[in-house]
């Protein structure tokens, strides 16, 4: 009995329109030769040119990407370890603590987390002389909240996975290490990839926490964009936004196409 009411579909269409209209407008106006948002003065790619020469933004972008990659890798490793321990064992000392520490970052307001981490770094610096704030502390901070997200994603996949596969492997003589590397890991790989991407995005996008824990000379892309937009609309930011949208669309499209091909290959 699948009656699909048009009202529900209209709600969906409205939702998508709501989500995508601002993005579409950003893209359109990145090509506006006039500075003003309201006046369309003709098609012009000049903002892209200016963007390419804006060393401040370019340096910040490069820094953000490096920080995000480091964060994602570290967070995926730690998050996966946590997820494995939780999914495969119902009790061990510290389990309740781990569960709590993995749940809290998911809902915590960023200002509180940023403040807390900064205070920790300052306290450490005063007593130990380390760390000095910069890209390193940003990575530490980002990893800290990303672990929770990775753990959620990986745990869901582990829960879905048929446990008898691991038992069968053990039954056939595989040591626990072998079971993990040859059975579990390949089967949860999609979740690991998703977790990596999620951490990467969260890190790349973070403004508040980076502002708290950063140091001189370490300006991330969001920090630069933020100081820019506080002054008003800037078409270079539109150009930047469009480039990001294109990059994301290509990545997702490419991944989707790759997965589709693998699926078709397997079915043959």
């Amino acid at each position, binding site marked *: 009995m699948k009656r699909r009411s048009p009202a529900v579909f209209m709600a969906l269409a409205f939702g998508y329109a709501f989500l995508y209209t601002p993005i579409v407008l950003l893209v359109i106006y990145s090509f506006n030769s006039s500075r003003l948002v309201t006046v369309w003065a003709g098609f012009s790619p000049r903002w892209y040119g200016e963007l390419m020469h804006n060393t401040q933004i370019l340096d910040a972008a490069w820094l953000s990407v490096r920080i995000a990659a480091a964060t994602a890798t570290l967070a995926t490793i730690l998050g996966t370890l946590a997820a494995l321990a939780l999914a495969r064992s119902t009790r061990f000392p510290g389990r309740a603590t781990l569960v709590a520490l993995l749940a809290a970052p998911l809902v915590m307001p960023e200002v509180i987390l940023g403040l807390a981490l900064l205070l920790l770094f300052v306290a450490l610096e005063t007593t130990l002389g380390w760390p000095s704030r910069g890209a390193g502390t940003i990575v530490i901070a980002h990893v800290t909240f990303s672990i929770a997200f990775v753990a959620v994603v990986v745990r869901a996949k582990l829960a879905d996975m048929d446990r008898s596969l691991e038992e069968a492997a053990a*039954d*056939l003589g595989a040591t626990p290490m072998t079971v993990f590397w040859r059975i579990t890991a390949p089967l949860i790989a999609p979740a690991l990839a998703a977790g990596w991407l999620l951490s990467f995005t969260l890190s790349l996008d973070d403004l508040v926490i980076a502002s708290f824990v950063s140091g001189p000379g370490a300006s991330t892309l969001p920090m630069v964009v933020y100081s820019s937009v506080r002054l008003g609309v800037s078409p270079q930011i539109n150009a930047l936004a469009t480039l990001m949208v294109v990059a994301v669309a290509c990545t997702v499209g490419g991944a989707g196409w790759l997965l589709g091909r693998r699926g078709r290959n397997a079915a043959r």
Partner: protein
Amino acid sequence: MTDMRSDAVDAILRIDGVTKKFRDTLAVDDVSLVIPRGAFYSLLGASGSGKTTLLRMLAGFETPDVGRVLIDGKDVTQVPPHQRPVNMMFQSYALFPHMTVADNVAFGLRQDGMAKPERDARVAEMLALVRLQSHAKRKPHQLSGGERQRVALARALAREPKLLLLDEPLAALDRKLREETQLELAALQRRLGITFIMVTHDQDEAMTMSDYLAVMDHGRVLQIGTPGEVYESPRTRHVAEFVGAANVFEGRVLRHREGHTEVRCEGVEVALMLPLLPQFSEGAAIAFAVRPEKMCVDTAPREGENAIAGELDDVAYKGDVSIIHVRLGDGRRLRVQETNVRRDAAAAQRGRRVWLRWRPEDSAVLLP
């Protein structure tokens, strides 16, 4: 009764006083079993009877709270699964979805460190055994249920384990395939000589395939024996009613006559005859079961056989057999099974007065 005493049997597996508790439930309750080498042994029971938990303890996925498991005399109770000379065929088959059929079968051999040429040869041998040679390069999701089952079997047998454990191997197959596979598995076991231990809730399966079976209920073993022994000589009422159907009579011994013992049963006016049982004194309580197929419905009693008068209540026509329910004077219904040997048999009439008869030696005396 098969002599299953420890010293008399060449046992490959000994389960010694094993108990396992999950939270508040006693899954396995002080079970001791001796599994003869080369046998096809079944653990038969309903869900929750503890049979699967017991099997998993043999494989090493659960550890007993009390008791020991010994394989070939060696205590393996605490040994992890990957170090036991035991392999298991899982109910869900548990084929590795990201590997081909050949890689699945080769998996255990790789863990043993077997060199590639020997591995390939053995994989080919195993696939030939289960008739799946042409499927070597396929992935599990491209196989049918029956084919997946055979891959699981080949994979479990590849390492030539001392014991093969089968967890409800035929549960996922449809009826026709199940019957074929029952015979195939039994034949395979005889050929290879490997000891098989199978867990099932399907008594037909257990009886068809096994050399011995153990009936389990609520974590305990109720009876052990060959299928014939368990079926024709059930020890308790529960076993009699779980394995097959039974008409159970309860009563008291009247007296011992020449060659047989007379018994007065509840709800039956005439005294019934059992084979001579001197161990029961006069007046002692006694119970026995008679299988429906041992009885027959007739128009008159016969000399030398038990006969009870009753009324034909209902007939369930199953094609090859008919289940006939006969109502006795006190309202109790007895169940008779007759094979429809004639194509042109007349239809039974409800309410017709009939006689139920059976031979005294076809009664199975139940222990108190």
